[in-house]
């Protein structure tokens, strides 16, 4: 059989040539230390060229994530993104960084990274602490949150903290207590708007049905989860269940002019409640949109 000369094939080698060249250049930069790191340890080169491509596979292929109202994300200026936390392993935080980065790049054309605030045990563990810093995270504390906001960054925070990630499966989509509302005072002091975000889908990836306390204490972990697949299936149990994810960005809540009231517990609690309520309503709406976690 003789066909026409393979014209369309020629486009493909060029793409692969580019990929190989880009990969080699990345490798050379890493080996020569030829990249920039900010004072929090954020490494945009590594995040954009290594972490995000991997996370995007999970985001699109595995969880089939859909982002709603991404236009509510501010294209410039400081903002505090507040979301619900769940899933036994904090994959929701990582997925949110991909969602925010890609939505802003495709929408407002802005290159912004969500700077996550993490619990201190994250920064105590080797490897994990460095991955967290290199991907733009830092310790959830007032000085760091305010420093990032003053620098005009987009800061991501999960006020439920471990109470949210580590809650049993039966409590799914029930927002936990919002701590002391420290995130509100940080926003008030810097005048940064608060952007509520609801994430649906993360609750089902590792349904936590039990906790082996002694093992957790032995390993220095906040809990040792038991899921339908872990630890029974060994490493296979580490694969997250492919639930369908929806992320919705709520309307930003303005905080300008409230800086003097950042120490007033009543103002702080009220605002924290308002944010919590906004997230809870987003979750109810999203759950109606997605009646079953594992649609065919």
């Amino acid at each position, binding site marked *: 059989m003789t066909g026409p000369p393979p014209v369309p094939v020629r486009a493909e080698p060029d793409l692969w*040539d580019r990929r190989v060249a880009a990969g080699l250049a990345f490798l*050379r930069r890493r080996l*020569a230390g*030829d*990249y920039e790191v900010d*004072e929090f*340890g954020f490494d945009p080169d590594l995040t954009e060229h290594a972490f995000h491509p991997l996370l995007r596979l999970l985001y699109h292929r595995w969880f089939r994530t859909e982002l709603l109202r991404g236009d509510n994300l501010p294209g410039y200026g400081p903002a505090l993104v507040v979301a619900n936390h769940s899933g036994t392993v904090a994959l929701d935080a990582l997925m949110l960084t991909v969602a925010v980065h890609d939505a802003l790049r495709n929408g407002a054309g802005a290159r912004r990274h969500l700077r996550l605030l993490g619990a*201190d045990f994250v920064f105590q563990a*080797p490897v994990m602490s460095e991955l967290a810093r290199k991907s733009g995270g830092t*310790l959830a504390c007032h000085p760091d949150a305010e420093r990032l906001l003053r620098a005009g960054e987009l800061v991501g925070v999960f006020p439920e903290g471990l109470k949210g990630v580590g809650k049993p499966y039966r409590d799914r989509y029930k927002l936990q207590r919002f701590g002391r509302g420290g995130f509100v005072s940080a926003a008030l002091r810097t005048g940064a708007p608060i952007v509520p975000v609801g994430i649906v889908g993360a609750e089902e990836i590792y349904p936590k049905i039990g906790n082996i306390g002694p093992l957790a204490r032995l390993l220095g972990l906040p809990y040792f989860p038991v899921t339908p697949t872990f630890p029974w299936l060994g490493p296979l149990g580490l694969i997250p269940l492919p639930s369908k994810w929806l992320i919705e960005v709520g309307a930003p809540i303005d905080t300008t002019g409230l800086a003097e009231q950042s120490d007033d517990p009543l103002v702080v609690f009220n605002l924290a409640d308002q944010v919590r309520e906004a997230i809870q309503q987003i979750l109810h709406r999203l759950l109606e949109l997605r009646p079953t976690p594992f649609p065919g």
Partner: protein
Amino acid sequence: MSSGSSADLSVVVVTGIGRFLGAQVASRLAADPRVGHVIGVDAGSPPPELAPLLARVELVESDLTACATVVANLDARAVVHLGVVTAPDPAVGGRAGMKEQNVIGTMQLLAACQRAPRLRKLVVRSSTAAYGASFRDPAVFTEETEPREVPRGGFARDILDIEGYVRGFRRHCPEVTATVLRLAPLIGPAADTTLTRYFAQPVVPTVLGRDPRLQFVHVQDALEILHRSVVEDHPGTFNVAGPGVLTLNQAIRRAGRLPVPVIEPGLSAAAAFGKRLGRGGFGLDQLDLFVHGRVVDTTRLTKEYGVTPRSTAEAFAEFLGGRRAGIAPLGRDRLEAAEQAILRAIARVRGQGRPA
């Protein structure tokens, strides 16, 4: 921003002139027309390589622990305390000698200063080690940040003690302009410190799973700030560091060296072993730095002195430029050559495979 000083600088006492920093500062002050008589104090006579710097400095051989009479007899108007030892030296008593010099020496010196009637200025060399090392630390330390945990390293503990004595001195003598400079690790083409020797090794041990953020300050910038702290009035505590950050692995890569990650307990044991031998080098101070990293905010320095030190990356590049002669198994030029070679090889192979 204040400049110029009304203080009388007719007699300036500099401690620690037997070391690089002390000798350099003494030499700069001696060459400054605003400064009268410069007197250098150190336990022994300075090493011969520093002697040319000290030609115009009067040398007084005195142990810091016995310097009370020296400061009083000299009728000092300004005291620059640079006699702070950063690493134990087996030749002068190891860690015990270091602590004696740092803690007891500072205590004695400040006691003498309190009794010096015409003293109007005190400049103390401190270190960013004053912030300690903890996982609960904020990413960037401002001068107000309090250490959360007492650090493990001897030097860092000494620094906390020294700053404590300076606080006491400030309460007793509010009329004396006291400047505390918290210096980041010094680096520069000519610097020879524990850290520069560490980066000069062909294979560099690091802590497995840690890539701490580091900051350096260029020696020349540190000297400039120290000098200006004496001849101008800048009361307060200031972080002195090059803005920006290098991570440890990044710095090792830029130096063309190979990082070798070692588990932390192994390094701790090695550091403890070194301590028992009274050897300097890799101690708990370095280990704490290599686990936690240390980044400080220099806004206050820039505002008060009107200068910004060379960035950490620039200072490190100048340090590397000064010692290109060493072996760099993974230099940038070699990596670029390797990259080009691979690309050419791929192009050649594909060129042959493709129909012409």
